[in-house]
């Protein structure tokens, strides 16, 4: 080791062993904490009751598990045991439902902690659907033996007799085990493992050239995830090293289905590929260094990952009568390398100023081999076309610089500049930049009032729109894809929050305006405008009573141009989205804390108006897409005794939609598509519940 290396090592060692000085030298030997009511022993609250749901409604059960008419068991609670330095806690929610949660953690605070979490999440999409397909033991989809194929759905003479109700729903179960160990105050070791399992049925479509059928696709897959690492601090430096792994496994690689439409001999079946197994692993290093010099913090992160997918290929076609060429390989050998680097420096060089610099680099480097494939179109038509896969890669660099200064003690002025550069391959735009500038004024004359106005603009520019790439993909060379197009954006945002001195009343308001112009797009999105306004009001009328009101409105309007004839604009369309909501509620605690009453109400309306005009557009416009929802929740809690409460709950939800994509669309409505005939959502559901809450308390409020 030469002299320089010795000096270097000594400097590093000196820093690493530098003890962290205590915040203050205080003699606490006489601090007895005699009045401290430390919570010791075991305390718990257990809820038990029953709810009744008035009607079947899949969407109402989405997330809640209350999708079917009938009675449900309400079970839940929370508890904690704390004794001699050991802390155990548990939490349970909706144990009688498909949305159940159970969480247990145990440990010695400041030393270690172990956790177990189990959650279920129901996804309920449709309960008005039906299918002609039956799933075999192997999971393939077959037609009834009496099925009569036809060229169009109106020839399906056995349809009515073959349709069987089938709900489109799935459940997600998540099991998570976590551990944390703190061997010293400055070192934190952690490891989490989770498994997310999904099972149920979703909809895929199987197509045969100009025809297709909705398929009840079984879902049975899981993802294991591991997150482990260490965080430690030495003096003014914090460092973290972590490993993340995600391993997706799907038991089924394909879905085979009988074609309900007329097929030539040997072409009666189709096959879809399902999601292949994939692995992703990533190492990351993060850190922060703080220094009193200019009051500065330097944060960095570096992560490198690799994703792999190497599931065995399916053959070009399931048909044995089609002679397909050999595949270029037995599997993809798909590999994606990711890298993410970031550096952020924040500094407050003067008392009332701050500056921030940040740089970030994200890269997806798709190393998947490029090969040539000759597809068999929809398991029917072999082609001699040679198609090569396009493993998309990109690099994105983002640079930000911002600063602010406080003026007159009540006004803060700040401004910033951002630049994003994006480089891609295989797409129409290889290089893209976006420059943004913004300014912000914040006015805070008192601690009770704050108003802020932020505004700016950004310009997204491209080096060139490569129409050769577009044409090779069959695209109209005049199209400018909306995420690749030149765009100029202006935006402004106003926020206001106020409360009354000595009065527990507060008001919050925000307004956002943004306008995008795609002035170089002859086809595609040409402009869009966004307005969002929200207002909140809350008032703590007394210690026992509080109320709130809330309202919001979103409006997003977009226009675009299109052409079906591969020429200039032949039609134009507007897509006007709006959504409004308002609601309110109150909490009332009754006399002597005997009765608590809580009410929440929300009303929302959504509307989308799509209007096409121009060539080959009839004078018969599309009806509006509409949705309305009323949601009411009333909860009363009556304290029967020191240990027991009686709970009464009432919940109402009305949801109604008008959706031209679903309204009146039965299984055979579309001549060339056999659907499942899902109805647009329309339900009124009442839920009434009664239960008790029982408190268990074997502990004491101990004092030292």
């Amino acid at each position, binding site marked *: 080791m030469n002299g320089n*290396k010795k000096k270097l090592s000594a400097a590093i060692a000196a820093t690493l062993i530098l003890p962290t000085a205590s915040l203050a030298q*205080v003699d*606490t030997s006489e*601090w007895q*904490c005699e*009045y*401290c009511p*430390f*919570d010791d022993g075991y305390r718990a609250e257990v809820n038990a009751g029953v709810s009744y749901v008035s009607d079947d409604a899949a969407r109402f059960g989405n997330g809640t598990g209350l999708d079917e008419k009938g009675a449900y068991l309400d079970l839940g609670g929370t508890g904690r045991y704390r004794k*001699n330095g050991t802390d155990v806690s548990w939490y349970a929610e909706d144990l009688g439902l498909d*949305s159940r949660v159970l969480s247990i953690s145990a440990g010695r*605070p400041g030393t270690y902690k172990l956790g177990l979490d189990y959650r279920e*999440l129901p996804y309920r999409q449709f309960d008005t659907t039906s299918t002609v397909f039956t799933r075999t033991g192997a999971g393939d989809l077959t037609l009834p033996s009496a099925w009569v194929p036809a060229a169009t759905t109106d020839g399906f003479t056995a349809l009515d007799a073959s349709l069987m109700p089938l709900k489109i729903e799935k459940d997600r179960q998540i099991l998570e085990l976590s551990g944390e160990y*703190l061997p010293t105050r400055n070192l934190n070791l952690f490891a989490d493992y989770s498994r*997310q399992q999904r099972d149920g049925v979703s909809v895929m479509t199987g197509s045969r050239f100009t025809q*297709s059928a909705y398929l009840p696709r079984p879902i049975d897959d899981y993802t294991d995830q591991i997150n482990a690492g260490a965080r430690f601090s030495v003096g*003014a430096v*914090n460092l973290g090293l972590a490993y*993340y792994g995600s391993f*997706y496994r799907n038991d089924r690689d394909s879905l085979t289905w009988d074609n309900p439409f007329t097929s030539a001999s040997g072409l009666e079946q189709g096959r879809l590929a399902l*999601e*292949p197994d*994939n692995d992703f692993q990533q190492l990351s290093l*993060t850190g*922060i260094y703080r*220094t*009193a010099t200019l009051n500065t913090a330097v944060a960095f992160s570096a992560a490198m990952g690799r*994703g792999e*997918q190497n599931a065995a*290929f399916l053959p070009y*076609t399931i048909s044995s009568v089609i002679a397909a060429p050999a595949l270029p390989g037995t599997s993809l050998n*798909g590999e994606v390398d*990711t890298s*993410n680097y970031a550096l*952020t420096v*924040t500094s407050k060089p003067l008392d009332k100023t701050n500056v921030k610099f*940040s740089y970030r680099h*994200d890269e997806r480097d798709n190393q*998947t081999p490029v090969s040539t494939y000759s597809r068999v179109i*929809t398991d029917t038509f072999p082609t001699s076309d040679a198609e090569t*896969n396009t493993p998309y890669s990109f690099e994105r660099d983002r640079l930000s610089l911002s600063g602010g200064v406080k003026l007159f003690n009540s006004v803060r002025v700040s401004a910033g500049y951002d630049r994003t550069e994006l480089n891609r391959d295989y797409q129409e735009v290889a290089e893209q930049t976006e420059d943004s500038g913004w300014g912000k004024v914040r006015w805070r004359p008192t601690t009770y009032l*704050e108003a802020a106005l932020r505004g700016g603009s950004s310009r997204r520019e491209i080096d060139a729109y490569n129409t050769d790439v577009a044409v090779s993909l069959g695209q*109209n060379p005049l199209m400018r894809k909306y995420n690749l197009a030149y765009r100029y954006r202006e935006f402004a945002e106003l926020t206001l929050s106020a409360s009354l001195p000595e009065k527990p009343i507060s008001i*919050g308001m*925000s307004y956002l305006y943004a306008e995008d112009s795609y002035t170089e797009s002859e086809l595609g*999105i040409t402009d869009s405008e966004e307005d*969002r306004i*929200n207002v909140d009001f809350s008032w703590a009328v007394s210690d026992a009573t509080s109320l709130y009101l809330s309202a919001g409105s979103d409006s997003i309007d*977009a226009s*675009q141009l299109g052409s079906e004839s591969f020429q200039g604009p032949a*039609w134009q369309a507007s*897509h006007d989205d709006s959504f409004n909501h308002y609601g309110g509620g109150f909490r009332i605690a009754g006399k002597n804390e005997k009765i608590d009453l809580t009410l929440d109400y929300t009303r929302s309306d*959504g509307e989308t108006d799509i209007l096409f005009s121009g*060539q080959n*557009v009839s004078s*018969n416009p599309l009806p509006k897409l509409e949705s309305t929802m009323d949601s009411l929740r009333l909860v009363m809690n009556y304290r029967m005794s020191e240990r027991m409460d009686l709970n009464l709950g009432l919940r109402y939800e009305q949801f109604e939609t008008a959706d031209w*994509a679903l309204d*009146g669309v039965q299984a055979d409505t*579309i*001549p060339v598509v056999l659907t499942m005939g899902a109805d647009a959502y329309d339900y009124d559901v009442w839920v009434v519940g009664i239960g008790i809450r029982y408190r268990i308390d074997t502990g004491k409020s101990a004092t030292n």
Partner: protein
Amino acid sequence: MKFITLVIATTMLLLLTASPASGQDPNYSREGADSCLSCHDDDAVLALFKGAHANPSDPNGPFGHGQLQCEACHGPSGDHAGRVRRGQERPSPNALFGSETATPVSTQNGFCIDCHTDDTGFGWHGNDHDTNEIACADCHTSHTAQDPVLMTATQPEVCFECHQQQRTQSLKPYAHPIRQGKMDCSGCHNNHGATNELQFAQQTLNDTCFSCHAEKRGPYLWEHAPVAEDCGNCHDPHGSNHPGMLAMRAPMLCQSCHSQAGHPSLPADGDGLPGGAPSQFMLGQNCMNCHTQSHGSNHPSGSRLMR
């Protein structure tokens, strides 16, 4: 090598100068928490003892052996606890918490981060909440048995106090189950750290989505370019008027990129609805009536994302 040594040595010097000064003797109360609780004995204050901060067995907690008890967070407050002369206004504690107090946000947060350095405070410095001077106490409640922002069902409403637009979006007809209390904001956002622009829990937006939707990660043989780059090109994860949280209704969504002659570029009107000539390009799943693999396909014949 000399240059590197100089850089490292300078860095070490900065590290040394950045270490907190020792030997301070600020004005703490005479009896610690007992000084405070002899006056502040209401339920709101005492609720602290039901929570995680008031555990005498936690050696690193405020009430661990030798720790500074109430003054670990509220700072040395001997003047506040001491005697005052008649007519003299009692000085405030060293630090009070929340936006409506006179204590500077940086001072408030400094007390929290001094202890929470290795966990939630790890990436705080320089993140957007720090830059915008958000106090820890704007979101967190420590004088309670259970901090609402740490519970999935109650966390979103805490975030929505500032992020009102996201509350509105979460109420839209097609949204993640936030309204139902089964998903929280921190499932996707790392509110205390993250060096990416929207404080995603994972390195990028797509990585964050893949943490629940791993089946869409691939890589697929036939990729859909906007999917590989940014899920937000087609989806609005905070909520939408359209199924699948799509940013627009198809076919317009697809037509904002796809312009092949013929069926991908057909306009839509009322004639394509039931009662007219029901259109496979508009009804049901519209474009996805055939192109069902919009997130990518691993089928050798799936280049058009139909297989």
